[in-house]
């Protein structure tokens, strides 16, 4: 009898604990549900209709025809290519520079703290403002020195120009994540390796890199999402250039400007699924490389 009472009261305590925990996560959960999950789920049925104007209620079920048209649509495929052409170098270069900066300023002293602030500063600038600043940099400095046309004006260089802006803006953020990862590595590991005669490069490859994989996981996942959702930068610098058109611009134009809401929704849904799968795969790949401290 006594055991049953004890078990009941433990269960009651656990249930109460669960409720309290649920209440704590409720704000974030409500926000996520209201702003992301419910609208996303609501949008799915629209992608199977011929809904044209957002201002009209007229729509008919068309099955998978929007999706079938989409995967054969040359313009959509170009925007997919452009989006990946931006995202891949953007992720790699931003991480490499971010890590380099983190190694440079990881020790806390006045000079390094100032450096961290300077390197992080571009992240606080809006993308549109970054685009304007870099337009001047490319025209007034790059073109003046090299005699070349600004990459923002050339179809075959506009993606590279956008990678420069994206990297400049986000490298400071990556740096902070890497600094947190680097500072979490115990000095003992390096000291032991030094006693064994390991050089700087060896220590970096065999101690630093494996132990900061969680920072890579975080940075790559985030940059992947930011890269694939690229929108405001090409809107600001090359609205008319097909070579700079990204998937989000394609979605935006079809839903809002071209009165093809159902078709645009299909593109949005398809790309969200691609984004989710890619994020999951990349996270899984990095998690496999993570090492417990």
């Amino acid at each position, binding site marked *: 009898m006594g055991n049953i009472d004890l078990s009941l009261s433990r269960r009651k305590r656990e249930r109460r604990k669960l409720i*309290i925990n649920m*209440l*704590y996560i*409720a*704000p974030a959960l*409500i*926000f996520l549900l*209201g702003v992301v999950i419910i609208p996303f789920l609501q949008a799915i049925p629209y992608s199977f209709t011929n809904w044209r*104007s*957002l*201002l*009209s209620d007229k729509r008919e079920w068309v099955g998978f025809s929007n999706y079938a*048209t989409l995967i054969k*649509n*040359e*313009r959509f495929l170009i925007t997919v290519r452009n989006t990946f052409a931006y995202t891949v170098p953007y992720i790699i270069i931003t991480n490499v520079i971010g890590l380099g900066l983190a190694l440079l300023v990881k020790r806390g002293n006045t000079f390094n703290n100032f450096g961290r602030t300077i390197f992080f500063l571009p992240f606080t600038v809006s993308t549109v403002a970054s685009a*304007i600043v870099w*337009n*001047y940099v*490319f*025209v007034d400095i790059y*073109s003046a020195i090299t005699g*070349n*046309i*600004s990459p*923002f*004006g*050339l*179809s075959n260089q506009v993606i590279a120009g956008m990678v420069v802006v994206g990297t400049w803006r986000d490298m400071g953020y990556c740096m902070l994540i890497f600094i947190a990862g680097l500072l979490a590595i115990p000095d003992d590991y390096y000291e032991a390796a030094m006693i064994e005669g390991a050089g700087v490069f060896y220590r970096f490859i065999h101690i630093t890199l494996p132990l900061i994989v969680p920072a890579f996981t975080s940075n790559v996942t985030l940059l992947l999402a930011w890269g694939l959702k690229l929108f405001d930068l090409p*809107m600001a*610098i*090359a*609205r*008319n*250039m*097909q070579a700079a058109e990204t998937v989000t611009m394609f979605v*935006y*134009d079809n*839903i*809002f*400007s*071209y*009165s*093809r809401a159902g*078709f645009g929704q299909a593109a949005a849904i398809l790309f969200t699924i691609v984004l989710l799968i890619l994020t999951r795969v990349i996270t899984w790949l990095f998690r496999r490389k993570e090492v417990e401290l």
Partner: protein
Amino acid sequence: MKKGKWIIAIMVLICSVSLFAQGSGEASDSGKTTITVFHYMTQNSKQAGLEAVEAEFMALHPEVEFENIVYSQGTDYFPQLTTAINSGDVPEIIMGNPSLYPELIENGIVMDITGDSAIEELGLSAADLGDCSFQGRVYAYPLDYKTWGVFYNTKVFEELGLEIPTTATELEEVSKAIEAAGYDVWADWYSDGASVDIQTRPIIWTAGIMNGDTDLFEQLMNGTPITDYPYIQEALDDWARRLQFNRPDALSNSQDQAIELFVSGVCPMMYMGSWAIGDIEAKAAGNPGFSYGFFLCPATEDPADTILQIQVDDAFMVNPNSPNADIAQEFMRYWITEGGLTWTEVSSQPLISGQSSDSLPQVVRDIAAIKQAGEYVGYGQYTMAYTSEYTSAWRRGLTEWAENIITGGSVTSDQQIARIQQLFDDIRALN
């Protein structure tokens, strides 16, 4: 302690729920009637003009106040407007030419103002009226009009002894003389779709009207080949003659950067729309040694082909579903009549009514004088305008053409026409 945890958890939950509740709240604390003006006048001079007219109207109607919401037309104006409408937050006054926004008309979001006495008082031509109409009905109050052409540095022209060119060849000679004197010839800006579009209009719009092709844009959207209208290719070839004298940064320059190059004296000529006059004036105020004039761009060898082209620029529609629709309509009537003078003086835009002021820049008065003489073609004479999607495709094709010429590419104008045709065909395949 346990009780405290519960209280904190519940308070956090209440706060999060109230966050959502706060989002839908709206009220005017002043107790006044708020008229929301949704517009895409991003130029400072036009915003100042709107505020000046609103201030006048509020002095006459102290119970009214205004909220101005501005977005860029090329990027987010219509999407933001759509979002506002879908959320039930329909503004009282919506900027736009009706033919560009047929969905607003089809869904009953703008008022049919055919026969409005204030518009009739303006005595507009059929072309002007066509620009604020859709399928024969009038939906917008027109305020002013825009045109485009060559803004030139009068001091450099005097210094080099140059005359205003009247043919395309003369314009080329003027360009060569400017280049030989060590100047960069043109301050151009092709990062914005409007800039490439206006470069081809001197030929296309005029030839379309003169040849009786008033259904030109309608036919092109219906699938008539572009090659059926040879003057479209001629327009590309004509523009290519000017593109040879462009600075390389024209491909990435914004309108503001082009104006800076022009006003600072680096480039003595700038192909621009009249909407930028206010901004040119503002920038020129910081450079007392600068003075400028305007001439229509000669695009052929016959001076008679160089005709003023106009399009109603700032036009506004009224939402009939708003409880304040009558006040909004009264404000619009005020703006296009008594408030017009204030508007033109502050914004430096030529009024569609023909009303003018001595305090306006000489360029605006010159343009107004040409229009008053009736020597112009108007976009409103065409049966239909390009939809957003065709406009976008057309401008994309023109931007590619500019890049091809400036970078010394090998694409010919007939190949580029074929490319634009492909862009048009792709749109039709989706529709």
